[in-house]
C-alpha cells in the first residue's frame, strides 16, 4: 500500500543522497586551516580555479644580526635596513653599520620575506612557502565568502552524490562503458575511442581497468562500486574516481545510472574529493546544462516520510533500493539477534524488509 507523504508525521531526520536531473547546489569549499580567500562574492568561477589557500610548509632562516655585526642587540636593531613584511632579494642589505671607515653589512642569503626581528636582533626570514590550495570544484558562482576559511559555490545542473572519491577534480565528456548498471567494466571495454572521456560503469573489480584508463588519459571515472583491490590503484591515477554506492562489486543505483548513461557526450565535472562527514559534503558529479529553468535545491538531510525512495546500507547485500512504508520507527530484534530501531521498506523486487533506521539513506 502506498501512502501519501503529506498525511504522515515525519520521522527522524536521515541523510539524503541527491541524485537529481536538475539541482541547485551550494557547496562549501573549506581550507583545512585558516588562510586566504582569493575570490570575491558573486564572481563566476570554473571548477579548476583556486578559490582559497593556506600555507602548508614554511622554510625559514633565523639570522643573528647582532652576532654578524659583532655588536650588542640594541645596536644591531638600530642597524636594520628592513622591517617586518618587507620582501627582499638575494644580496639585499638587511643591516648595515658604519665603523670608522669601513661598513659592516648583513645581506639576504636568499630571496624571501622578513617575518620579524626579536629583542636579540635575530631576524626571521621566510625563504620558501608551500600552499594547500582548494579549487572551486564546480562551475558556478561564489555565493558567499567565509573568511578566512573558504567560500560557498553555487552551481546548477544534473547532480549525483557518491560515497567515495580519490581526492581529484577534473571535467570531461561523459561516456558510458557498460550497458547495464549491474555490469563490471572490463579492460577490454576500453578502446582508443575512450581517450580523454569521463567513463561511467556499473562497478569495477579489476585494478587493470584503472591502469588502462590512465593510459587512455581518462578525465574521470564514475562507478557504482569499487573493490579493495582497486582502491589503491584509484588513489594513484591522475584522474578523479567517484564511487556512487559502495565498496566491493556494488552495482550503481538505478537513478544515477539512468541519469549518467542518458547523458552521453555531455560535459561533466567530477569532484571526487573524499566525503567530509563533518561538513556533510559528499564527492559528486555535476553535469552542465545549457539552459536552467527551475532547479531543485539539493540538501543534506530531511525527515523520513512514508513513500520516500530509500537506499539500504547493508555491506553484505549492497545496492538495495526500496520504498519507505512507515515513517515511525519501532524497536525490534533483527534476524541476527541485534535489537534496533527499525522501519519497514518494500524493495523494488516487491519484498518487504525491516531495516534499522541508521541503515537508511533517502534518495532524492
Amino acid at each position, binding site marked *: 500500500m502506498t501512502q501519501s507523504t503529506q498525511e504522515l508525521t515525519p520521522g527522524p531526520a536521515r541523510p539524503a543522497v541527491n541524485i537529481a536531473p536538475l539541482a541547485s547546489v551550494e557547496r562549501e569549499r573549506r581550507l583545512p586551516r585558516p588562510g586566504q580567500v582569493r575570490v570575491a562574492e558573486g564572481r563566476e568561477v570554473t571548477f579548476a580555479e583556486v578559490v582559497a589557500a593556506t600555507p602548508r610548509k614554511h622554510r625559514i632562516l633565523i639570522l643573528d644580526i647582532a652576532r654578524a655585526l659583532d655588536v650588542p642587540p640594541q645596536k644591531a636593531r638600530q642597524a636594520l635596513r628592513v622591517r617586518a613584511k618587507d620582501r627582499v632579494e638575494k644580496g639585499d642589505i638587511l643591516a648595515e653599520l658604519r665603523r670608522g671607515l669601513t661598513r659592516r653589512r648583513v645581506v639576504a642569503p636568499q630571496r624571501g620575506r622578513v617575518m620579524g626581528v626579536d629583542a636579540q636582533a635575530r631576524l*626571521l626570514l621566510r625563504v620558501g612557502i608551500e600552499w594547500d590550495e582548494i579549487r572551486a570544484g564546480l562551475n558556478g558562482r561564489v555565493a558567499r565568502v567565509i573568511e*578566512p576559511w573558504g567560500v560557498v559555490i553555487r552551481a546548477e545542473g544534473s547532480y549525483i552524490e557518491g560515497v567515495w572519491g580519490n581526492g581529484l577534480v577534473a571535467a570531461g565528456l561523459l561516456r558510458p562503458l557498460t550497458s547495464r548498471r549491474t555490469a*563490471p567494466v572490463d579492460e577490454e571495454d576500453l578502446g582508443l575511442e575512450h581517450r580523454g572521456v569521463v567513463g561511467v560503469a556499473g562497478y569495477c573489480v579489476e585494478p587493470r581497468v584503472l591502469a588502462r584508463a590512465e593510459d587512455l588519459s581518462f578525465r574521470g571515472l564514475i562507478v557504482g562500486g569499487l573493490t579493495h583491490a582497486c582502491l589503491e590503484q584509484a588513489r594513484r591515477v591522475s584522474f578523479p574516481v567517484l564511487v556512487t554506492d559502495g565498496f566491493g562489486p556494488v552495482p550503481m543505483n538505478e537513478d544515477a545510472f539512468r541519469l549518467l548513461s542518458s547523458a552521453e557526450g555531455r560535459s561533466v565535472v567530477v569532484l571526487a574529493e573524499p566525503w567530509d562527514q563533518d561538513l556533510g559534503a559528499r564527492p559528486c558529479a555535476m553535469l552542465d546544462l545549457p539552459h536552467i529553468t527551475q532547479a531543485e535545491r539539493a540538501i543534506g538531510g530531511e525527515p523520513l516520510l512514508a513513500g520516500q525512495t530509500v537506499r539500504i546500507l547493508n*555491506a553484505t547485500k549492497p545496492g538495495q533500493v526500496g520504498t519507505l512504508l512507515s515513517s515511525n520507527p519501532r524497536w525490534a530484534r533483527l534476524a*541476527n539477534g541485534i535489537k*534496533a530501531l527499525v522501519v519497514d521498506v518494500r524493495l523494488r523486487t516487491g519484498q518487504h524488509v525491516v531495516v534499522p533506521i541508521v*541503515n537508511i539513506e533517502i534518495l532524492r
Partner: protein
Amino acid sequence: MQGSLVETDVYLALDVGSAFTRAFLFDGVEGQYRLIAVGQAPTTAGPPVRDALVGAEQAIVDLQNLAGVHLLDEDGGLIVPTSSTGEGVDTVVGTVSCGRPLRVVVMGVLPELSVASARRIVAGAYVDVVEVFTATDAATPEEQVERLVEAYPDIVILAGGTDQGARHAVAAHVDLLLWAVRLWPLVQRPWILFAGNQALGEAVQKRLGAHYEVRLAPNVRPSITQENLTPAREAFLDIFRLLWAARTPGLEDLHLLTRGRFTLSTYGFARLARYMHRLYAPRGTMLAVDLGAAYTTAVWGRLDSPRHETWPWGLGRGLAPWEGRQDFIDAVTAWAPLERVGGKEGSVADFVHWKRWHPHTLPMDEAGVDLEETLARVLLQQVRQRTIGRGGRVDFVLAAGGVLSSAPTPQRALLTLLDGLQPVGLTTVVVDYAQMASVLGVLAEVNEYVVVQVVGSAAFTPLATTLAPVWRGRVAADRPIAEVTLAYSNGEETTASLLPGTLTRLPLAPGRRAELRVQPARGVDVGAGPGEPLRRDVIGSLLGVVLDARGRPWTPPTTAGERARSRTRALQAIQIAPQEKVA
C-alpha cells in the same frame, strides 16, 4: 559524598557519542537506585542537523516513550526539578565523545620528567600529540620553528624546570613560540598551557600573553621526585571544553543543560573503571576497554598505578587510520570466518572501507555480525599490544562498546573478547551492556550511591570468569592439561578434564559463589606458576566459568571455512543449556 538515597533524586544522564546519543534515566526502586530505561537516537552534531542538542532531545523523547514518564514539558523543555506529580528529573549529567581529536604540542626540558608529565596531563583525552620539543632536541632553531608551525597545534603544553630550577630551556621554548606567532595567522594560534617552573610563570604570561591565550597552572614537576598533575589536567580540560564546544554545535547548550556536569566520555569511563577495579580485583590487575566508533579508550594496570589512554581509532570512522594499511587488512582477512562479502567478487577488505564510511550502520544479517566482530577482534588485539602485552595476565576486564554490548548473545561477546584480548590466568569479565559506564563515572561525582547500587544491579552482571592456562612447547591433544573442579556452596561439584585446544563451560549462575580448584599438568601454568595448583573463590556470572584451553597466543585456522567452523564450535562449547535458563 554529596548525595544520599534519602533524597531519592531522579537523574538523567546524556552520552553524546560519535554515532549515537543515549539518554539514561536513574531513579529509586524499592530503596535502590536502578537504571529505569535508555533512550537512543543518532548523534546530530554533524550534517544534516549540525546540532548535538537535537539528537539529545530525540534520545530523551525515546526515553520518555520507553519509560512511560514525562520528562519534557509541552514546549519541549526539560522539566527540572521533578514536579509534585513525578514528572521531570532533578539532575542532568553528560558525557561527550563526538568530535575530532585536538592537536597538542608538548614542550618540556627532559623527556623522562617534564615531557612525560605533560603527556600524562592529556593521557586519555581525545588528542593527538603531534610534536614534542625538549631541551635535548638536536634540530636547528630553524628546523624547530618549521616543525612547530607545521604541527598546527590547538594547544601547546609548556612544561619544564622544577620550581626555581631550569630557566634557559623554558625561555628557548618561549622564543620558539614567539617565532611561530610571526608565521601563523591570528585565528590559527594555539592556546598555551604553562605548567612548568613557577618562578617563570609571570614572565611567560608577559611575553606570550600579547600573542596567545595563555593559561597558567601549577608546575607538573615541582621537584624531580614530585609530580602534580591534577591542577594542570583541570586547566587543560577547561581549554579542551572551550575548543570542542566552539567546533561542535550544540555542545555549549548541553554544557548549560547539565550545569557544567558535562565531561569527556573517556574520563567518565576511566573513573567507573577504577571504581570497578576496586570492587572486582583490588589487589590484581585490570584492563578496561571502550571500543567506540571513533575512539578506543583503555584503562589498565594496578589500582595504585593505573594507566589511561585514548587512541583516535575505533570501529567506525575510527577505521580511517587503518583502512589503507595492508597489515591491518591482512589481519582482518586472517580472522574473518568468510571470504566473500556482497557477491563473488567482494572481499572482506571491502567491508573495512564500508564500515569506515558508514559508521552508523548496524549489521543486518549473520555475516554482517561476523564481520563486525572480526573487526573488533583485530582492534582489541591492538589494545592488547598497547596495554597488557602478549601473554599479559589480567584479573579483571571491563569491556564497553556497541559491538560487545549489543552482541546478539553473551557467548558472542565473550568469544570476541577472548580472541581479541587473549587474557591469561583467571579473569573476571564484565560487559557494560547498557553502555552507561561513562555517564556513571560522571554521576559518581554527584551521588556515589547511584553508582554503587547500579553497578551492583543486573545491569552489570558479570559476563564470565575465564581461566586461560599457558604452557611451553607441544602438548598431546588427547592428554588433559588440567583437572578442574568447581565446588559450589551447597556441596555439589562439577569437574572437567581440560584438553588442549578446547573451550569448556562450567555453570555458575549470577549471585552464586563457588571454589575453583585447578590441578594443572606439569609445565602448565593456570595462574599460580607452572605446575602449581590454583584454588580461588569465584563469583557467578551469565556464562559461569569458561575454561579457554586453546593456548596463548591463539591464532585462528588458515582457511575461512575452518575459521567459521571453529567459531561455531567455540560458541556451542560455551552455550547455555536450556535447563539452566529455566533454573
